C-alpha cells in the first residue's frame, strides 16, 4: 500500500471510528460560555495543542513508535497501555480513547490485517489491556511504512481538525473561521512535532486542571450532543 494514501485514509475525519461523537470537554466550555466566539475558540485550540495534546495523546503516539522502533517486547506495550489508563482521569476521556481504539483496530483489520494490531485488539477484548487510540494508530501507521514525523503531523492535524469542526458546530463559528484556525495553527503543529522527541519522560501526561474539570462536568451536563 502507498504510505501517504494510507495515512490520508486512516486520518480522515470521515474514517468511521466515531471520533466525531467526542468533544473532549469542549461542549462544557461552550455551554458555560467560555468558548463563545472565534477568538476564544482559537485560544482554546492553540492551548489544547500546546498544553494538552503535546504532553498526552501525541506523546503516547510517540512512545508507541519508540517501542516499535526499538522492537521492545509486548510487555512494554502493556506498561504503556497501563500508564495511559492511569493518566486519563475523566472517565469519558478514558472511554473515548478505548472506543476509538477498538473501532480503529476492527476497521483496519478488515482493510489489511497487521499482527500486532490484532494482538492488541484481542488483548483489549479479553480485558487484559484497556486500549487507547494513539497506541492503535501508532501500531497500524508504523506497519505501513509511514514516517514518525508524518504520523505525528497527521495526528495533530486530525486533533485540531476535530476541535475546529466541533467549534463550528457548537459555538458556532463560521466554517471559514474554523478553516482559518486549522490553517493558521500549522506553525504550532510543526513546532510541536519538532519538539516531541525531546519531551522529558517526567512531563508525559501533564494535566490541565481547568480542562480536566470541564471534562468531568460534562458527565453531569443536562443536555448534550457529544459523548465526551
Amino acid at each position, binding site marked *: 500500500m502507498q504510505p501517504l494514501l494510507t495515512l490520508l485514509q486512516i486520518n480522515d475525519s470521515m474514517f468511521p471510528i466515531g471520533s466525531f461523537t467526542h468533544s473532549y470537554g469542549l461542549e462544557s*466550555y461552550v455551554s458555560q460560555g*467560555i*468558548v463563545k466566539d472565534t477568538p*476564544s475558540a482559537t*485560544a*482554546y485550540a492553540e*492551548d*489544547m495543542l500546546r*498544553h*494538552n495534546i503535546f504532553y498526552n495523546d501525541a506523546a503516547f503516539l510517540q512512545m508507541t513508535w519508540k517501542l516499535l522502533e526499538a522492537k521492545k517486547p509486548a510487555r512494554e506495550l502493556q506498561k504503556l497501555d*497501563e*500508564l495511559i*489508563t*492511569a*493518566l486519563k*482521569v*475523566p*472517565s*469519558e476521556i*478514558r472511554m473515548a480513547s478505548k472506543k476509538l481504539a477498538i473501532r480503529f483496530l476492527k476497521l483496519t483489520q478488515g482493510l489489511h490485517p497487521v499482527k500486532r494490531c490484532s494482538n492488541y485488539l484481542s488483548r483489549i477484548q479479553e480485558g487484559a489491556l484497556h486500549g487507547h487510540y494513539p497506541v492503535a494508530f501508532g501500531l497500524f501507521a508504523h506497519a505501513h511504512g509511514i514516517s514518525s514525523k508524518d504520523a505525528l503531523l497527521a495526528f495533530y492535524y486530525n486533533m485540531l481538525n476535530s476541535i475546529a469542526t466541533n467549534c463550528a458546530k457548537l459555538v458556532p463559528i463560521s466554517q471559514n473561521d474554523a478553516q482559518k484556525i486549522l490553517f493558521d495553527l500549522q506553525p504550532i503543529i510543526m513546532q510541536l512535532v519538532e519538539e516531541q522527541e525531546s519531551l522529558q519522560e*517526567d*512531563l*508525559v*501526561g*501533564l*494535566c*490541565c*486542571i*481547568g*480542562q*480536566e*474539570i*470541564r*471534562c*468531568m*462536568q460534562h*458527565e*453531569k451536563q443536562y443536555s448534550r450532543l457529544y459523548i465526551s
Partner: protein
Amino acid sequence: MLKSSIKINAEREGKQTLLKESGYNAPYKVIHYGARHLHEHLELIIMSATPGIMEGDEIDISVNVHEGAHLKLFTQSFNKLHPMEKGAVQRTHVQVKKDGIFRFIPHPITPFAKSDFKAVNEIHLDESATLIWGDIIASGRVHSGESFEFTRLHVVTKIYRNKKLVLLDNQLLEPGRQPMKSMLFFAGYTHQATLIYVSPFAAELKAELDEILVEEYEQIDFGFTQCAPNAVMLRAMGDEGAKLHDWLSAMGRLCWEFTRYKQGLEEEEPEMEQAAAPSPAEAAPVPEKPARRTGAKRVKKGAPANKAVKPTVASPETPAEDALEKLLTQTEAVAAP
C-alpha cells in the same frame, strides 16, 4: 538547606490504632492530635518549627499503615514555599496494608515568588486498603498581590493498587511555560484542589456522590469522576484556600465514614448529604468534647432526619490558634527523634 525525615508507623492493636516505631527530625515534629484515646483510630499532626520550605530543603516522609490500622494525618498550617534558586524537594512514600485506611488532606501549598518545588508521592495499597488523599495548590500569596510568580511547582502522585499503577496525577505549574490564568488551567481562579479516593468501595461512593453533589457550591467550581475501577477523583477550583481545604476535608470525612461503615465498623450509614456540606468540618478536629453543629440540616430523602448524623465539630476555618498552641506546648512527643 535542611534534610529532614518523618517516619510514621500505624499499627492496629485490638480495636485501637497505635503509633509504633516512628520518628522525625528537625524542624518537624509529629504528635498526637488531641487526646490519644478519644478515637479508635489514630490522629496525628505534623508540625514544623520553620516558616516553610526553603532553598535546598529535602524532606522524606514515610507512612506505613499496617493491617487494619486507621490513620488520619493532619498538617499544622499552609505549606509555604520560600524564594529559591535551586529548588527544594519532598518525597513521600505511603504503604497501606489490608483493610487499612489512610487519610491525608494537607493545607494548601502556597508558592511564593521565585519558589521552585518538586513533590513526588508514591503510594502502595493492598487490594482492600483505602486511601483518602488531597492536595491544594494556591497561585501564590494572593492577598499580597503575588500570583503565579513562582518558578516551578511539580507535584507527581503515583498510586499503585496490588502493585499495579492505577492512577498517575502529573501536575506541573510553570508560569513561564504555561498560561496559568487561561481556561485550560486555573481559569481565572487562584486555587486548585484535588481529592482522590481509592478503595474497594469507590464505585459505591461514586454512586452516592452522584446523588449528593447535584447542586453548585458557591465559589467552588468542581467536577468528579470515577478515574479507575476502584478510584474516584474530585477536582475543584476556587479563590480561597481555606474554603477549599474545609470542603475537601468535609468530603474526606464523608469518604472516611463511608469506608468505616462499609467495613462494618460503623453501625449506621453516614448522613452523606450532611457530610458533604461545604462548611468547616474537619479542618481542625478539636480535642474537646464535640458540639453538635447548628444550622439548617438538609435531609436525604427516605433517611431518618437525625439518626445517622454524626456530631460534627463547630470549628473555625483554620486550626484554632488556641487549640494549636495547646498542641505546641504539649511536651509529650509521640516518639523520639
